[in-house]
């Protein structure tokens, strides 16, 4: 079974630049999540999609972060403009339905200089 795919794996940008991450969930998984994991901390939810609708984006810094899940499959997460404190690993996960077991991708490690 193919897992959750993410790209790129690493990204280095300067502050105030823009960056985008891509995620392809496991086929058939209706729920998709984006988490931010800062070094030394556990993952923190940024946004949860059910198909192509947003279930929870209460912790998404909407002034600079945006995410979309067109057609209820792939998803992109964008940061514009980036700040130093955005340096983290961005994890994408998917599950058959919300509240169930989540399968995680390898993550994108973002460094903002």
């Amino acid at each position, binding site marked *: 079974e193919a897992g959750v795919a993410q790209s790129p794996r690493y990204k280095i940008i300067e502050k105030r630049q823009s960056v985008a991450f891509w995620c392809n969930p496991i086929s058939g998984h209706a729920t998709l999540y984006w988490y931010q994991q800062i070094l030394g901390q*556990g993952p923190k939810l940024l946004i*949860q999609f059910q198909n192509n609708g947003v*279930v*929870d984006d209460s912790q998404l810094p909407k002034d600079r972060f945006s995410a979309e899940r067109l057609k209820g499959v792939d998803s992109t997460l964008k940061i514009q403009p980036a700040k130093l404190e955005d340096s983290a690993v961005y994890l994408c996960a998917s599950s058959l339905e919300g*509240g169930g077991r989540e399968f995680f991708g390898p993550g994108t490690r973002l460094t903002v200089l």
Partner: protein
Amino acid sequence: AQSVSQHNHHVILSEAASLELGCNYSYGGTVNLFWYVQYPGQHLQLLLKYFSGDPLVKGIKGFEAEFIKSKFSFNLRKPSVQWSDTAEYFCAVNAGGAGRRALTFGSGTRLQVQP
């Protein structure tokens, strides 16, 4: 809002020692409980989960965890650790039932097993 506390941030053990990692959560309703593991250079993987039923759950690689509702705890145990268990361990919880929410993670425990 739910929260998860992991009290041990860094644990160092010798091979064959017994392991217990603490996890306490704060949430008033029905919860699902998880332990995820992240081996060096790998992505997060499910170790075990509790949804309902027998509060003692067994996972992969000889790990088990016990849900104690009265203590809001879900501690992870293994009777004899191996060098290959060196990893970071995360306890997580989500609202069960109709909540269908995402996971709330603890801050993680880094386990180092010395040969």
